[in-house]
């Protein structure tokens, strides 16, 4: 029987890499599925390329476009999946994307209490803290306190809406456009949009200096 050691951490392919038990399990399942013709030999490699192509820059483009184009914003809020297609961003099979707009009176926060569902088609894979117990348990119970731990202070007169994702329904937060960005181009705006602002754990700070100016 294979042992339960996790194997020492090393760069794969360096010659003395020893995979741990669960990595051997993962490799074995993939090889058996290929041998049985249930998956194609290239499926995993292709899927890794898809995973690598998804990152917060895609979501940032959506947000910046919505800030600059009121009609696009309407379409984005009405049907996230279709609006993504306008920018050439495809969705994963069977997943809806609901975009939640932050306003002067409402701040949105996204969580998955059941597991780790996340708008990965538009911002990539979730950080560890999103998948761990404390965030998942507390986001729905004490979001205001939890957000303070991110350094995010939501005024008492601003409501916090917490949306709990599922395998079929993913949420993305449309943050408020930062103050001081009135003359920014769409491209410059996109650079300001962070992953965490699209999960709703942070708000975007006001901008003091235009990117074209030397501070």
């Amino acid at each position, binding site marked *: 029987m294979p042992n339960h050691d996790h194997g020492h951490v090393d760069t794969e392919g360096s010659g003395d890499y*020893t995979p741990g038990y669960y990595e*051997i*399990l993962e490799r*074995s399942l993939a090889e058996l599925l290929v041998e049985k013709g249930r998956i194609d030999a290239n499926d995993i*490699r292709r899927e*890794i390329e898809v995973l690598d192509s998804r990152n917060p820059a895609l979501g940032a483009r959506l947000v910046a476009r919505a800030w600059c184009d009121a009609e696009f914003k309407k379409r984005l809020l009405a049907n996230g999946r279709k609006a993504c297609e306008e920018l050439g961003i495809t969705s994963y099979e069977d997943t809806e994307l609901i975009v939640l707009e932050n306003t002067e009176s409402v701040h949105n926060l996204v969580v998955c209490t059941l597991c780790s569902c996340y708008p990965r088609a538009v911002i990539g894979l979730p950080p560890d803290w999103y998948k761990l117990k404390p965030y998942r348990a507390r986001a729905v119970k004490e979001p205001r306190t939890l957000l303070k731990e991110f350094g995010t202070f939501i005024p008492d007169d601003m409501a916090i809406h917490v949306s*709990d994702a599922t395998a079929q329904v993913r949420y993305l937060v449309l943050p408020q456009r930062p103050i001081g960005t009135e003359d920014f181009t769409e491209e410059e705006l996109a650079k300001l949009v962070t992953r965490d602002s699209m999960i709703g754990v942070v708000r975007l700070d006001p901008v003091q200096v235009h990117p074209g100016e030397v501070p």
Partner: protein
Amino acid sequence: MSAQNRDAADWLPNDLGGVATAPFERVEHPMLPWEKRCHALADVLDFRKIISTEEKRRGVEALGETTINKLSYYERWAVCFANLLFAKGVITPEELALKMAQIEARFNRSGE
């Protein structure tokens, strides 16, 4: 049941909304190569209609709290896939044991 009175024992082990937990820490680690492959495998199992995302979620719940707490995120997935592939008759435990021994031997040889 109100969230305030929520007792973890009344709920599925991985259904966590409102449960009292350890303090929040903003941890992140870059994905290991095998973790990324495991994630890719999950997506492939879904689009090849072998294991859906929802089946995977339930499969992780079915591991029970002790196992869930002992394993890392992708370790749970790997074990859950094995269980579901056995249950669906896609692979047998004997085939898996044999394949794991082969792969382990392959690494041991190349490491010498």
